[in-house]
């Protein structure tokens, strides 16, 4: 991150539906973004908080990208305090927002308040399956309105 940025991200440039990918920079990022875009979603990618910078969701400023997203896909894992804090803040601030979490079964069972089994994605989920799960999560959320 550049030295003088805050963690409050910009608002979305693109019309919805919108998916926020909380995803560390990895080789498979573009494949997931591409699959979601071809399925009709605008996509933003957040590399997540670091030990030096707290997630804005956990602070006063909030996160415009998360607030205006239709679905969040968290691939930050559950291993670090920062990742769990971000996920907890998402759950607390945006309780109706569908949040899919890429995590192993063992880690998910250790943090059941953060990951419901039906919201869990297997680590390394294929882009096509990711799209199906996002479609389903969005459908369910809309059905619940």
């Amino acid at each position: 991150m550049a030295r003088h940025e805050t963690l409050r991200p910009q608002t979305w440039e693109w019309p919805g539906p919108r998916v926020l990918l909380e995803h560390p920079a990895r080789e498979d990022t573009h494949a997931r973004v591409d699959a979601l875009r071809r399925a009709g979603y605008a996509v933003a990618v957040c590399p997540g908080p670091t030990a030096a910078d707290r997630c804005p969701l956990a602070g006063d400023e909030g996160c415009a990208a998360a607030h205006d997203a239709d679905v969040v896909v968290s691939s930050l894992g559950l291993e670090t305090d920062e990742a769990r804090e971000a996920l907890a803040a998402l759950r607390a601030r945006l309780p109706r927002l569908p949040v899919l979490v890429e995590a192993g079964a063992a880690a998910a069972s250790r943090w059941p308040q953060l990951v419901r089994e039906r919201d869990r994605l297997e680590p390394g989920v294929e882009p096509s399956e990711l799209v199906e799960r996002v479609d389903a999560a969005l459908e369910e959320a809309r059905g619940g309105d």
Partner: protein
Amino acid sequence: MTSPFRTEAQAFRFLLLVAVGTAAVVVAHAVAGRTVLVVVCVLAAGALAASYLVGRPRPRTLPSAPAHLGPPAERRALLLLVEDAPDEAALAGLRERSDRVLVVAPVGTSALRHWVSDVDRARDRARSRLEDAVSRAQAAQLDATGVVGDEDPLAAIDDALRTFGGDEIVAATSDPELLAALRGRYAIPVTAVSGRR
């Protein structure tokens, strides 16, 4: 209340600067005349203001991209024409992985010309470069069209993504700052290609 400082270290540096500035003012008051005191006060205030302005919070940019436009299997590319048109090798590479290409030529103009609304010549130059690049892309058997875009390359790409779409950005530039800005703003692949010699 939201802190105006991004980190505790930044707040500490600001506090340190206040202490140093105050000390300088006190010393100047004790040993120097009024003129020196005024100069020291102005410098101290300027340093504090600069420290705050440089370190003030700015929104973080998350890379993002709109939904794909066009048939699902079609691959579209945006060719950003900042410098010379890409060479034959770059065009051949683009042909391998893209079905359609939109060449985007931002109007390259100076701040002064923009301020006095004198952008016609810059627009003509951009159009000329665009026509040359599109012709060369079509000669390389690319399904290419073109558009003269906003003076700001990022705004030009924004507009192109809204109207044409794009699954990758190919930038004919060697400007590392522009490449970093493109990669920081868009969640689609951004590659740089060399210009024609």
